[in-house]
C-alpha cells in the first residue's frame, strides 16, 4: 500500500529564507537572460552579430536558433551548417553539450520564457492548480513531442515557429517598447493559453509548457539524463541517509521533477524519501536551497541505488485490476 503526502509549504524558517534568496538570484539570472536574448535589449544578438541598424526581433532564433535547431537535428543540411561552423546552428549543440555535463542550466537559469510562466503561477492559490508531481510522466510525453517535432519536417509539416513561446515573448517585448510587431496570428493566442494560462497560472510550479511542449528542454533533458549516469557530470544528487522526508523539495520544485517515493524505496532517517526525475530536472537547485537537512546537492558522483535495485517501477492500479 503506498501513500502520498501532500506538501505545499516549507516547514523550516531557515530553509524558507534560503529558498527565497535562491529564488531571487534565479529571477535575476532570468532577467539577464531576457536582456541578452529578447527585445528590446537583445545584447547577445547585437554583440554577436553586430545588428545595430537593421530591424531586429532579437529573440533566440536570431542568435542561437534553438527551436529550429532541434527541429533540424535529423536533417543533413543542419550538419552541413555545423561543419561550416555557422554560429546559429552550433548554438543548439553547445546547449546540449552543456546540459550533458552541467544539466539543463539554460532552462534553469537563462530561459526567460519559462521564468515568466513560473512567476505567474505564484499569483494563483495552489488549490486551484494542477499538480503533476509523481502523477504524470511528463518527461516521456515531452520526448514523444520531441520525436514528432523532429520527424514531422520530413513529411512537409512543422510544429515550429507559430507555436513558439520564445517568439511570443519577443513580440511582448516589442509591444511593450512601442515597436512594430511583424505578425500576430491566432496561433499565438493558443500559445499564450497553453504557456501562460494553463501551463503557468493553473499548473503548480508554472512550468506546464516546459514540462510537456518544449522540444529544447526535451533535448537538453535527454542529454542530462544520459550524462547523469556518469560520475564526472554535475547533477542533482540525493543522499537518502540524510533525508527526513519533510518534502520541502517536492513543494518548491517548479518542474515537479521531485516526488515522494513509495514506502521502502530508500533507507532514510524517516519517511519514504523522494525520487528525482532527471528527465524533467532543470538543475535550478531550488530544492537544494529548500532542503534543511542537506540531503540534496548539485554535485558530481554516482546516484545512490534504491532498495532492491535500480529498476524499480511503481504502478498505481485500480482495485478491480485496471490501470
Amino acid at each position, binding site marked *: *500500500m*503506498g*501513500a*502520498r*503526502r*501532500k*506538501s*505545499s*509549504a*516549507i*516547514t523550516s524558517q531557515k530553509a524558507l529564507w534560503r529558498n527565497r534568496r535562491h529564488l531571487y538570484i534565479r529571477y535575476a539570472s532570468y532577467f539577464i537572460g531576457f536582456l541578452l536574448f529578447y527585445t528590446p535589449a537583445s545584447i547577445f544578438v547585437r554583440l554577436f552579430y553586430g545588428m545595430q541598424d537593421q530591424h531586429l526581433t532579437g529573440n533566440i532564433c536570431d542568435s542561437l536558433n534553438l527551436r529550429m535547431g532541434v527541429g533540424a537535428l535529423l536533417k543533413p543540411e543542419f550538419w552541413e551548417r555545423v561543419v561550416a561552423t555557422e554560429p546559429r546552428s552550433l548554438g543548439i549543440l553547445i546547449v546540449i553539450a552543456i546540459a550533458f555535463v552541467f544539466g539543463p542550466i539554460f532552462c534553469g537559469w537563462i530561459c526567460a520564457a519559462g521564468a515568466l510562466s513560473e512567476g505567474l503561477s505564484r499569483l494563483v492559490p*495552489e488549490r486551484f492548480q494542477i499538480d503533476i508531481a509523481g502523477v*504524470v*510522466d511528463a518527461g*516521456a*510525453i*515531452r*520526448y*514523444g*513531442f*520531441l*520525436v*514528432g*517535432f523532429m520527424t*514531422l519536417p520530413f*513529411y*512537409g*509539416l*512543422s*510544429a*515550429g515557429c*507559430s*507555436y513558439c513561446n520564445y517568439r511570443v515573448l519577443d513580440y511582448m517585448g516589442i509591444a511593450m517598447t512601442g515597436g512594430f510587431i511583424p505578425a500576430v*496570428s*491566432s*496561433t499565438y493566442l493558443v500559445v499564450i493559453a497553453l504557456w501562460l494560462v494553463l501551463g503557468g497560472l493553473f499548473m503548480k510550479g508554472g512550468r506546464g509548457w516546459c514540462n*510537456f*511542449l518544449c522540444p529544447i528542454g526535451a533535448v537538453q533533458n535527454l542529454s542530462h539524463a544520459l550524462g547523469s549516469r556518469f560520475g564526472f557530470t554535475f547533477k542533482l544528487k540525493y543522499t537518502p541517509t540524510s533525508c527526513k522526508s519533510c518534502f520541502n523539495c517536492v513543494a518548491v520544485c517548479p518542474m515537479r521533477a521531485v516526488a515522494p517515493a*513509495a514506502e*521502502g*524505496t530508500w533507507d532514510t532517517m524517516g519517511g519514504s524519501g523522494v525520487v528525482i526525475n532527471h528527465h524533467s530536472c532543470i538543475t535550478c537547485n531550488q530544492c537544494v536551497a529548500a532542503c534543511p537537512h542537506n540531503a540534496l546537492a548539485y554535485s558530481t558522483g554516482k546516484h545512490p541505488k534504491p532498495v*532492491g*535495485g535500480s*529498476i*524499480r*517501477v*511503481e*504502478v*498505481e*492500479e*485500480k*482495485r478491480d*485490476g*485496471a*490501470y
Partner: protein
Amino acid sequence: MQASDEIKAKPSSMRRVYFGVTGLWLRLRNTITAGLFGVSGATTVASVQHALHTCSAGNCAGCGRCAVALLAAVAAASGGIAGRTKGRRRWGFIALVVVIGLALYAMIEAWKRGLLS
C-alpha cells in the same frame, strides 16, 4: 501558507512496486505509451499549423496533409490510451479521442473554406 501533513491514499487504487524484468517491461511500456501522447500533441499542432498557414480561406491545395496528421494524432493518442487502460475505460477514451479529432478536422475544414476567418 501552512504545511499539510496528511497522508492520502486513494481508496479505489493501490500502488504496486515491480522489480527486474517485469519492472523494466513496465517502465518501457509506460514510457512508450506516455510518449505516444506527446507524438499526438506534435502532430495535432503540425496539422493545425499547416492548415492555418498554408490553406487559409480558400487556398487549400488539397494535399491532405492536415487530415493525415490528424489521423496520426488520433492513432497515437489511441495507442497511448490502449497501453494504459483496460476494458470499458479504454474504448470510452478512444471514442472520446476520435470525437475530438473529428471536431478538430471539422474546424480545419471550416477554416479552409473561409467560414471561420
